[in-house]
C-alpha cells in the first residue's frame, strides 16, 4: 500500500511522544498533543503524510509548526526523530538551531521532563497555538493575530495558551458588558434575535474563563450564577464541568477547557445580523466582547435570510459550534463499488458442484441480471481501485453465492411488512456485557465483557472447533479431498469459546467478513486480532495508548478502523502492526467508528457531539456533521451508501445525507441512550436499540423518499426538518428489561437483537 510508509512514520513519532509524555504524568497535555500536531496537516490542506508534505508547502505557518515540533522533540531528547523530521522537511540546521536558542530561553531546562513537568505541556501548547493560528489566518482576515503570533514566536510558555485571556478589563464590568449585549440582542428584531443568541454561549464561556484566569474568583462565580441559566439546555454537561472550575490552576490540564481554548467556536450568522451586532459593539465601544468575538469565535457569514430558531437548534449543540460550510464541500464518492462478480460462469460451476439441491437453471438469469446491474458504474461511486482491496479468495466467492441465494429469499420489508425480531439474551453475564457482534451470515455471535474476556458462540448446530496442533497436523493426508475437515480437532468441539488476552474491559468487537478473524478493542489500549480457526490471539495492535472505545472491520476485510480516548481514529491493515492512517480532528474521545459500505470512507462519532467522515485515501476529513446534543454512540450507513444514521446518548436518531453533508431527519422517541442502529438489508427500515429496553423501527424509505434536497439547501446548508418522528416510527418493541446492545439484520431480513438480561 502506497501510503503505508509515511503512515508508519507518523505512528513512530506518535508513539514516541506518547511514551515520553505519559511517563511524566501530564496526561492531558500529551493527549492534546496528538490533536495539535496531527490536526496541523488537515488544517493546512495536506494529506496525512504530514511532515513530509509540509516542507514542500513552504508557507510560514507550516514552517513555524515544524519548528515547534522540532523544538519539542529536542527538548525530550528525541534526537533521532529530530534528524528524521529535519531530513524529511528539508529544513536547514541553522533555522532549527535558531529556534532552539529562542526556545531554550523560554522553556528553561529543556530535555528533563522529570524536573519540568510542564515542559511537554508548554511545547504542546505552542503546537496548538501555531496550528490554531494557521487555521485562523486562513479564514478570519480581520482577526488581530499579530500579538499572539508574536508571543508564540519568542516565548513558548504554557501560559501562551491561556495568555489570550490575560488581557483584562475591570472584572466588575463583565457583568455589565454581558447584560448590555443581552439587552441589545433581546431588543433586536425577532428574525435576528435567534441568530445573535448563538453568541451567548461562547461569549459566556470565554468571559467566565477570563475571569477565572485572572483570579477573580468571586466575580467569576457571580457571573456564572447570573448567566448560566440563560444558556441553551443542551450545553448543560459542559456547563457543569465549567462550574467546577474556579481556579487558574484548574484550567491547566482540563480537557474540556483546552478544547474550548484551541478551537474556535463556529457560528453561522447571516450578514445582516452580523452587521447589526458589529455596529452595536462598535457604537458601544465594547472592546471586551469584540475582542473575544474576534479571537475565539469563527463567524461564518452567509448572505440571505437569517435562520429561524428551530433551524439553528437543529444544527447546534456540538462542543465547538456548527461545522463551517467549507468543511462539507468536498466531494464524497458515496456510491457502491461494483460487485466483483466477474467470474459468473465460474461461480455457477461452483454452485453446481457444491450443492445438489440447488437449481442452477433458475438462478442463472437472476445472477446475470445482478451482474449486468453491477457492471453499470455508479457515477457517485469511487474508482474500483481507489483504495487497494484484497483479492477474493475462493471461500469468499462461495460466501457471495450463498449471500445472493439468501437474498432471493429475502423478505421485502416496508411500512406494512415489519420484520420479525429475535432477541438473543446473554444470561448470567455477571462479567458485564459491553459489546456484541454477529457475523454477516448470522452463524456466530460474540460478546465482549468488562472482565476483559471475549466469548464466541455458534448459534447454529455447527459446533466451534479448533484446528489440530502442529504435530497432529503433520499426520494427516494433505492430498485428501476433505482436508479442510480433517484439520479440525473434533475433541475441541463446543458451543462456545472464550478468548483471553486483554487486560481491561473489551469495548468493541467485530467479525471479519470472511468469519476467520475477530477483532476486539479494550481499555488496555490495544486492538487484538483473534483467529477463529485456532481461537488464539494473532496480533495485538498497539498504537492507541489510551482506552480504545470502538473498532470495526472494513466490509471487504483486511482494513479496520479503531478510535478511542486519544481522539484519534486509526486505520490499520491486518498485516501491518502500525496504523496506515490516523484521523485527527475530533475535540473529544472517539466513541464509535464505522466503515462506509464502499470502504473508501470511515465515519467516526465522538463525545464532542460531532460526526466526522474521513477519506481513507487522503486522510482528509470530508464531512463534519453537527446537531447531536450528546456523545454519539452508534452509527449506521444505509446499504446504498447514500445516507447515514447516528444515535446519541440524548436518545435521538439523526439521519444524514452524505452527498450534501446535511441533516435530513430527526427521529425522536427513545428515552435513553441509543447503543445500536442498523438498516435492513434493502434499506427500507431502520432499527434502533437503546438503554431504555426498546427496539424501535423507523420507516427509512419514507424518510429518504420524502426528501427533496434543492440546490439552495445544499449550498447554504440551511436545513428545514419536518416534525415527522411519529409518522416514521413504525413500532416500539419492549424487551424483558434488557438493554439492546446490538442489532443485526440477517440476510433474509430477520432482525436479531442482543443484550444482557439484568434482573
Amino acid at each position, binding site marked *: 500500500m502506497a501510503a503505508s510508509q509515511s503512515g508508519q512514520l507518523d505512528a513512530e513519532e506518535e508513539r514516541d511522544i506518547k511514551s515520553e509524555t*505519559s511517563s511524566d*504524568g501530564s*496526561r492531558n497535555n500529551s493527549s492534546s498533543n496528538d490533536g495539535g500536531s496531527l490536526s496541523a496537516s488537515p488544517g493546512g490542506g495536506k494529506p496525512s503524510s504530514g511532515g513530509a508534505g509540509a516542507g514542500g508547502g513552504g508557507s510560514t505557518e507550516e514552517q513555524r509548526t515544524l519548528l515547534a515540533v522540532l523544538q519539542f522533540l529536542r527538548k525530550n531528547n528525541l534526537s533521532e526523530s529530530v534528524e528524521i523530521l529535519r531530513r524529511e522537511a528539508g529544513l536547514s540546521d541553522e533555522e532549527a538551531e535558531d529556534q532552539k536558542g529562542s526556545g531554550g530561553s523560554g522553556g528553561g531546562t529543556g530535555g528533563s521532563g522529570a524536573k519540568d513537568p510542564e515542559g511537554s505541556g508548554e511545547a504542546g501548547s505552542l503546537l496548538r497555538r501555531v496550528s490554531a493560528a494557521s487555521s485562523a489566518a486562513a479564514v478570519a482576515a480581520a482577526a488581530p493575530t499579530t500579538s499572539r503570533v508574536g508571543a508564540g514566536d519568542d516565548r513558548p510558555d504554557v501560559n501562551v495558551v491561556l495568555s489570550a485571556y490575560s488581557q483584562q478589563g475591570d472584572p466588575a464590568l463583565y457583568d455589565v458588558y454581558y447584560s448590555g449585549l443581552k439587552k441589545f440582542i433581546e431588543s433586536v428584531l425577532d428574525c435576528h434575535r435567534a441568530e445573535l443568541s448563538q453568541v451567548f454561549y461562547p461569549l459566556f464561556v470565554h468571559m467566565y474563563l477570563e475571569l477565572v484566569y485572572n483570579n477573580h474568583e*468571586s466575580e467569576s*462565580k*457571580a457571573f*456564572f*450564577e447570573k448567566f448560566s441559566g440563560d444558556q441553551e439546555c443542551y450545553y448543560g454537561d459542559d456547563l457543569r464541568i465549567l*462550574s*467546577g472550575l*474556579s*481556579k487558574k*490552576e*484548574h484550567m491547566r490540564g*482540563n480537557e474540556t477547557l483546552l478544547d474550548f481554548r484551541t478551537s474556535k467556536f463556529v457560528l453561522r450568522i447571516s450578514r445582516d445580523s452580523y452587521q447589526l451586532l458589529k455596529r452595536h459593539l462598535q457604537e458601544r465601544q465594547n472592546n471586551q466582547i469584540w475582542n473575544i468575538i474576534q479571537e475565539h469565535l469563527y463567524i461564518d457569514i452567509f448572505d440571505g435570510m437569517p435562520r429561524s430558531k428551530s433551524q439553528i437548534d437543529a444544527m447546534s449543540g456540538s462542543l465547538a459550534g456548527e461545522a463551517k460550510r467549507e468543511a462539507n464541500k468536498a466531494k464524497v464518492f458515496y456510491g457502491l463499488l461494483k460487485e466483483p462478480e466477474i467470474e459468473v460462469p465460474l461461480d455457477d460451476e461452483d454452485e453446481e458442484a457444491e450443492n445438489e439441491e440447488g437449481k442452477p437453471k433458475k438462478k442463472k438469469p437472476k445472477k446475470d441480471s445482478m451482474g449486468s446491474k453491477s457492471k453499470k458504474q455508479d457515477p457517485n461511486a469511487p474508482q474500483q481501485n481507489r483504495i487497494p482491496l484484497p483479492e477474493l479468495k475462493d471461500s469468499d466467492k462461495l460466501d457471495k453465492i450463498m449471500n445472493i441465494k439468501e437474498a432471493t429469499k429475502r423478505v421485502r420489508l416496508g411500512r406494512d*411488512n*415489519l*420484520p*420479525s*425480531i*429475535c*432477541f*438473543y*439474551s*446473554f*444470561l*448470567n*453475564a*455477571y*462479567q*458485564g*456485557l*459491553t459489546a456484541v457482534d454477529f457475523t454477516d451470515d448470522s452463524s456466530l*455471535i460474540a*460478546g465482549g465483557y*468488562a472482565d476483559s474476556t471475549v466469548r464466541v*458462540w455458534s*448459534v447454529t448446530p455447527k459446533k466451534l472447533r479448533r484446528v489440530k496442533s502442529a504435530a497432529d497436523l503433520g499426520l494427516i493426508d494433505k492430498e485428501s479431498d476433505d482436508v479442510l475437515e480433517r484439520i479440525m480437532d473434533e475433541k475441541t468441539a463446543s458451543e*462456545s469459546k472464550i478468548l483471553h488476552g486483554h487486560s481491561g*474491559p473489551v*469495548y468493541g468487537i467485530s467479525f471479519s467478513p470472511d468469519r476467520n478473524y475477530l477483532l476486539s478493542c479494550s*481499555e488496555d489500549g490495544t486492538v487484538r486480532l483473534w483467529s477463529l480457526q485456532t481461537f488464539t490471539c494473532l496480533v495485538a495492535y498497539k498504537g492507541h495508548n*489510551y*482506552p480504545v472505545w470502538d473498532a470495526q472491520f472494513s466490509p471487504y476485510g483486511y482494513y479496520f478502523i479503531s478510535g478511542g*480516548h486519544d481522539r484519534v481514529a486509526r486505520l490499520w491493515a491486518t498485516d501491518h502492526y502500525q496504523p496506515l492512517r490516523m484521523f485527527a480532528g475530533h475535540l473529544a*474521545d472517539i*466513541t464509535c467508528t464505522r466503515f462506509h459500505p464502499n470502504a473508501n470512507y470511515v465515519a467516526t462519532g465522538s*463525545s464532542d457531539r460531532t460526526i466526522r467522515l474521513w477519506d481513507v485515501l487522503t486522510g482528509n476529513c470530508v464531512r463534519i456533521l453537527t446537531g447531536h446534543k450528546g*456523545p454519539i454512540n452508534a452509527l449506521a450507513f444505509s446499504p446504498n451508501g447514500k445516507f447515514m444514521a447516528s444515535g446519541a446518548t440524548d436518545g435521538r436518531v439523526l439521519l444524514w445525507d452524505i452527498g450534501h453533508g446535511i441533516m435530513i431527519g430527526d427521529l425522536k422517541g427513545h428515552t435513553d*441512550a441509543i447503543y445500536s442502529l442498523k438498516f435492513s438489508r434493502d434499506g427500507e427500515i431502520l432499527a434502533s436499540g437503546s*438503554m431504555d429496553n426498546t427496539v424501535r*423501527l423507523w420507516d427509512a424509505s419514507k424518510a429518504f423518499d420524502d426528501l427533496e434536497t434543492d440546490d439552495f439547501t445544499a449550498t447554504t446548508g440551511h436545513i428545514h426538518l419536518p416534525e415527522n418522528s411519529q409518522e416514521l416510527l413504525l*413500532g416500539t*418493541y*419492549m*424487551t424483558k428489561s434488557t*438493554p439492546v*446492545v446490538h442489532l443485526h439484520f440477517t440476510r433474509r431480513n430477520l432482525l436479531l*437483537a*442482543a443484550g444482557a438480561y439484568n434482573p
Partner: protein
Amino acid sequence: MADREERRFAEVPRDSVRLMAESVGVELGDDVAALLAEDVSYRLREATQSSSQFMRHAKRRKMTVEDFNRALRWSNVEPICGYGAQDALPFRSAKDGELHFVEDRDVNLVELALATNIPKGCAETMVRVNVSYLDGKGNLEPQGTVPSAVQTLSEDLLTYYQQITRAILGDDPRLMKVALFDLQSNSKMAALLPYFVYVISGVKSVSHDLEQLNRLLHMVRSLIQNPGLYLGSYVRSLVSSVMYCILEPLAASINPLNDHWTLRDYAALLLSHIFWYHGDLVSGLYHQILLSLQKVLSDPVRPLCSHYGAVVGLHALGWKAVERVLYPHLPAYWANLQAVLDDHSVSNAQVKADGHKVYGAILVAMERLLHMKAASRFQAVAGPPARKDPGPPGRGAGSPGPGPSREPTAEAVPGVAGHPWEGWSPVSLPAMYGELYSFFGDSLAVRFSPGPVARGPGVAGALPRAPLPPGMGARDPGPGHVHPDAGRKMPQLTANLSLSPRPDGSPRVTEPAPPSLAATGLSR
C-alpha cells in the same frame, strides 16, 4: 450565593484535610489546608467526570468503584483498593463526632477456609434466543390491572377505559366529575360496557370503603343515564351490584360514623332509575327483586340496616310494591321493631338508633302509599288518568321522557299472574289508614294535615292534590278502626327518609318519576 455554589458539588472540608495531614504527621496552616481542600475537591470532581466515561462505554447506568479506579489509573493516581465488592457498601456514622466510614467487618479466615458449604460458583454465561415479535407483532401486553379480555380492544378504547376508571376511582374529585359526565354522554364507548360492568361488579370487594362504593354507584348512574348506550343483558349485573349496596350488611356499616344510610338510599334511588329508564329490560327481574326484598325483611336475623335497605328498596320500586310486600308484612315486623325501640338500655343505643331509621323509612313509605292510593282513587273517579308527571324537575334535556308504559308498576309488568301475591286483594284506603294509624299514631296523621306542610311548593303545584277520603282528617282516628291500644302509638317522630338529598329536604317526590339525579351524587 457563595453557599449555593459550594453546594453544587461535594466538598472536602478543610478540617478533614488537616486531620489527614496530622495522621501522617504533617502540621498544616489554615490557608494551606483551605487551598488543599479546594484542590482535592476539584480533583475528585475531575476524576468522577472521567470515570463516567468508563461507565458509559460499559453500557451501564450505575458507576462502580472499578470505573473510578480506572479513571484514577489513567491519570496516574494510585487506585483505591478494597472496595471492589459488587454489593452496596453500607456507609455508617460514628455515634460521637461527625465521622463517617464504610463498614468493614472482620473476616474469619479459619472459618472461611474450613467451611464445608463451598459455593458452587456462578452459573455459566450463555446466550439464549427467543422470537420476540413475529412480523412486527408481538407480546404487547399492557401493564396494570386491566382485565385480560380488554387486550382485544383498540388502542384508543383501551386508553379511554384506563383513563376513565383511573379518574373515577382516583383522588381528584374534579377529574371524577369530568369522567362521569363523559361516561354519561359518550355514545361511542358501547364496546367498553362489559368492562365497566365488570369494574362495577367489584362492589363486593370494596364493601369496607364507602367512598369507593359511592364512586362505583356513580358509575352505574352514568351508565344507565347514557342515552347512547344499550345496556342489554348487562343490566342484570348492574342491578345485582346495586342490590348488593342496598341490602348487604356492608363492612362499612360496622362503624356507626359511616353514613351507609345515604349509600343505601342512593342505591335504592338507582334501582328505581334502572326500572324507570330500562323497565323493558328488567321487567323479568321485578318479581325476583320483590322476593328477595321480602325475604330480607322477613328474616329477623338480618341486621336493621338490611331491613332498612329492604324498605327503601321497596319504596323505590313504587307504591304498589310497598302495598303488596311491606304493608302486609308490617304487623309481623312491627313486633320486632317495637322491641328494639322500647329497649332503653345503653348497650342498645346504637341498635335503637338504627331502629329509628327503619321506623322512619317505613313511615315515609307508608305515607306515600296512602297518598298514591288516594290519588288513584281520585283518578278512578275523575276519569282517564291524566299524565301525572310532568317530568322530574332538573332532568337533563336529552334523557328520554318517562312514558306511561315504562312506569315501574306492577300493572305495567307482564307476568304478574301466577305469582305468590296472586291471592292478594287490595285493602280499602280507610282500612289501611286505620291499620297504619294504629302503628304510627299521630306521626302519620301530621303528614296528612291540611296545607302543604312538608311538600315542596313545586311538587305541590305539579301534583293534583288528592283529596283525602272522608274520615281521614288530621288526628281523626277514623270510625271503627281505632286500635285502642295506646301503647302501640309511637312517639311523634319526625323521621325523614331522605331518599333524595334535595336542597329543600323533602323526601317525597312525585310518583312515579325518579327524583332528579342531577342534583344528587356529585354534590356529595
